[in-house]
């Protein structure tokens, strides 16, 4: 019995940090409507800075002062980020905001390694809380008790801040209607900045307070952000009480899940989240959101099928690409195959997020499922390659069918967070279920059969499938199904009013996208001869997002160009620098801020303008269409 009480208290202690970070995320979202992906990075920075400060300055004052100063210092960094980066993208579609803050996360990860090194750092114990208290023969660290008290105290302070101060009243008002607050003479800029500072302070404090409990490392940002997403989705984005209750719930589920179902401890939390989302899609304490802004939507260039000339041009490019084996060596052909595979992956995500308006942050899950499908079929069932290539993607299809069903119940940022969480489940299954997936060691020796084994044959195979995938998805875009999907994307209410079952259409699109991604993963497994959990990791999901973005979110097939350019660049970059995340992150931020239309989108806009200028239409009309909403 005592053991369970102690386990319960451990859970409560973990909840404290989680609550700090989640409440910060919630507060920031409430006012700015930005889901700050970089929140985990601020949490991590808080821990690193606190580690440095508490090592440097001794004594109780050095420790507690170091923790507070670390949180304040990181809050200052947060303010800089808000002023320099976020202010430029408050009016961008939410996908861009998520991506920009994600780019930031990548940069911070590499910077942390650059400054503090790649190894785990173990901080010192908290002065005055070094011991443990005996509870019927079980030990409870006294620092845990401190954290258990701290959580409700912070909740109370935040409550007072929001209920009893003018600043709090303004923040609550802005959470509901920020334009109206501006129309009453309040400078939103500073309100946003101060809110962001508070949110980052809480995240950094949460990280700093973890150092006596956990080692500091450069992977803690993603670990915490996934948990925090789960917490705010369960508790309701924007609700501080919700963040508290959900943080306790999630922490206790973790604490007891390990005892009761050790194999599926991670999944347990996600199962609870799925149940909450079905019963209350806006979370336990949240409020239903107004329909989200359209995800793409910088311009209104209507899509059209290719003209005859453009079709010939596309075929000519394909023929040229097919001629590569006659001039290139094996290395280039392998790179070419990889690029072709990522074209498939990118167009599948593009189909979901540009055509369907559903920006998935966990699309790699279906890529990885396809890869594992092939690997398992080939290694365990010993099926021939053709059968594997046909059946492997079915695992992606099934995953997409299950997760997609839940995910399409939501939209916008909730959709993004949920897809990310699902991808993390799949990743952790692959990572934990060692007896089947080989865990971190992956599954090796998945080689293509003789007919496809040579680099040139495999290249042709990949290229052919890529071309087929692009063509089929294009046909779907311009089919009645595609029209219905785009109608649902552009106006859920209106399309529902003309009898379109939006959820079913979106679910179907999700399954199609997942299956095509699975196909890409299947090819990838054969290309590499192995599969690893990283084949479904977050960074792969983000790669796909960046490819789509780089090509142009609002184009019909920009993802093809985006994938080619990005993958080529990426392969080159990785061979050139050890700090690829830093460069990649900076690249993502740069695209979002300076280049939101992507390569193809920019070209289209240029051509559009040339056509327009000949027919002399006021440039005012074409310039700022996005304010139409």
């Amino acid at each position, binding site marked *: 019995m005592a053991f369970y009480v102690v386990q319960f208290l451990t859970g409560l202690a973990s909840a404290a940090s989680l609550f700090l970070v989640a409440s910060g995320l919630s507060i920031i979202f409430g006012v700015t409507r930005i889901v700050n992906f970089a929140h985990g990075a601020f949490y991590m920075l808080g821990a690193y800075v606190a580690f440095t400060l508490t090592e440097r300055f001794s004594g109780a004052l050095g420790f507690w002062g170091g923790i507070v100063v670390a949180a304040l210092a990181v809050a200052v960094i947060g303010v800089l980020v808000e002023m320099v980066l976020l202010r430029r993208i408050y009016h961008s579609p939410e996908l861009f905001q998520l991506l920009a803050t994600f780019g930031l996360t990548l940069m911070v990860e590499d910077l942390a390694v650059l400054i503090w090194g790649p190894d785990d750092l173990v901080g010192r114990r908290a002065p005055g809380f070094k011991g443990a208290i005996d509870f019927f023969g079980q030990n409870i660290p006294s620092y845990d008790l401190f954290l258990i008290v701290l959580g409700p105290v912070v909740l109370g302070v935040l409550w007072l801040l929001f209920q009893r101060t003018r600043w709090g009243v*303004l923040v609550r008002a802005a959470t509901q209607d920020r334009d109206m607050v501006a*129309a*009453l003479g309040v*400078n939103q800029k500073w309100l946003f900045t101060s809110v962001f500072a508070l949110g980052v302070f809480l995240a950094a404090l949460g990280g700093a307070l973890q150092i006596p409990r956990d080692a500091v490392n450069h992977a803690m940002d993603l670990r915490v952000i996934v948990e925090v997403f789960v917490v705010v989705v369960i508790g309701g984005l924007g609700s501080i009480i919700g963040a508290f209750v959900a943080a306790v719930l999630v922490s206790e589920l973790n604490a007891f899940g390990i005892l009761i179902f050790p194999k599926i401890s991670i999944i347990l939390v996600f199962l609870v989240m799925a149940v909450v989302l079905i019963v209350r899609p806006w979370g336990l304490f949240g409020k239903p959101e107004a329909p989200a802004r359209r995800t793409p939507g910088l311009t*209104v260039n209507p899509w059209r099928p290719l003209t005859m000339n453009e079709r010939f041009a596309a075929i000519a490019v394909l023929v040229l690409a097919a001629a590569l084996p006659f001039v290139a060596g094996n290395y280039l052909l392998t790179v070419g195959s990889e690029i072709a595979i990522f074209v498939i992956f990118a167009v599948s995500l593009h189909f979901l997020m540009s055509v369907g308006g559903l920006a998935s942050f966990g699309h790699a899950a279906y890529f990885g499922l396809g890869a594992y499908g092939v690997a398992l079929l080939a290694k365990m069932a010993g099926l021939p390659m053709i059968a594997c290539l046909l059946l492997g993607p079915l695992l992606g299809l099934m995953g997409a069918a299950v997760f997609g069903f839940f995910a399409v119940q939501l939209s916008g940022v909730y959709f993004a967070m949920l897809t990310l969480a699902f991808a993390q489940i799949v990743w952790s299954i692959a990572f934990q279920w060692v007896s089947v997936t080989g865990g971190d060691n992956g599954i090796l020796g998945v080689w293509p059969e003789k007919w496809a084994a040579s680099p040139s044959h495999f290249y042709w195979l990949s290229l052919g499938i890529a071309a087929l995938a692009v063509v089929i998805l294009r046909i779907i875009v311009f089919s009645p199904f595609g029209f219905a999907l785009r109608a649902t994307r552009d106006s859920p209410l209106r399309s529902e009013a003309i009898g379109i079952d939006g959820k079913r259409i979106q679910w179907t699109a999700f399954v199609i996208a997942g299956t095509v991604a699975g196909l890409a993963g299947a090819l990838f497994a054969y290309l590499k001869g192995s599969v690893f959990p990283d084949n479904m990791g977050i960074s792969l999901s983000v790669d796909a997002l960046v490819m789509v973005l780089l090509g142009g979110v609002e184009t019909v097939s920009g993802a093809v160009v985006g994938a080619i350019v990005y993958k080529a660049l990426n392969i080159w970059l990785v061979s050139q620098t050890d700090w690829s995340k830093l460069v990649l992150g900076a690249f993502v931020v740069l695209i979002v801020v300076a280049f939101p239309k992507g390569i193809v989108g920019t070209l289209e806009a240029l051509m559009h303008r040339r056509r327009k200028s000949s027919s002399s239409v006021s440039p005012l009309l074409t310039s*700022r269409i996005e*304010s139409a909403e």
Partner: protein
Amino acid sequence: MKLTVKDLNSFYGPAHILFDIALEVGEGEVVALLGRNGAGKSTTFRSIVGLVQNRSGRVMFEGRDVSDLPTHAIVRGGLGYVPEERRIFTDLTVEENLEVGRQPKRAAAPQWDREKLFKLFPNLGEMRGRPGGRMSGGEQQMLTIARTLMGNPSLVLLDEPSEGLSPKIVEQMVDAILAMKKEGVSIVVSEQNLHFARLISDRAYIIERGRICFGGTMAELDARPDIRDAHLSL
């Protein structure tokens, strides 16, 4: 002139909404902006306070060009705005709603505080702690006006204050607007209801399809039934 608007053009996306709007409001005057649904009344107000991004033209307020200022700066300068859809903060209490509108006192403008506003709108005084979401439409309309007055404006843009209110509440609204006028607040009120406008206004403009097509005193408007019938539904 308290407020001068010249050559105001506004766009929603590719759509041109307002065409060369020109308005003038004198010190302490109540001016009605009349027009049918969709004529451009709300867009005119939103453009004046900078809530429509895509606009051109000049807005002079108390001799200062405010065309390029952000919304909050225009409002802080003493130009209050009461939106059509009320937009009260439903989670906040009456007193908290007023708090959001509070701005420092301004020497040249009439000054308001909570107690003075509760005298002007006695209903509100009786429900200080009630959340805005649990008030009737009329009470919400009173609250939006009171909230804007907390900023001590010298001029208020009132967007369709009588819309959707019962005759009895409309009477109270007339009294409140006249009381504001007596305090020295200049007012531009947009209306579809000529009868209501006549009770409170000194002058009127008529807007139709984004263009001002009449401007003059109420007497001048009454002398032109043709204009009235062509541009206003009775």
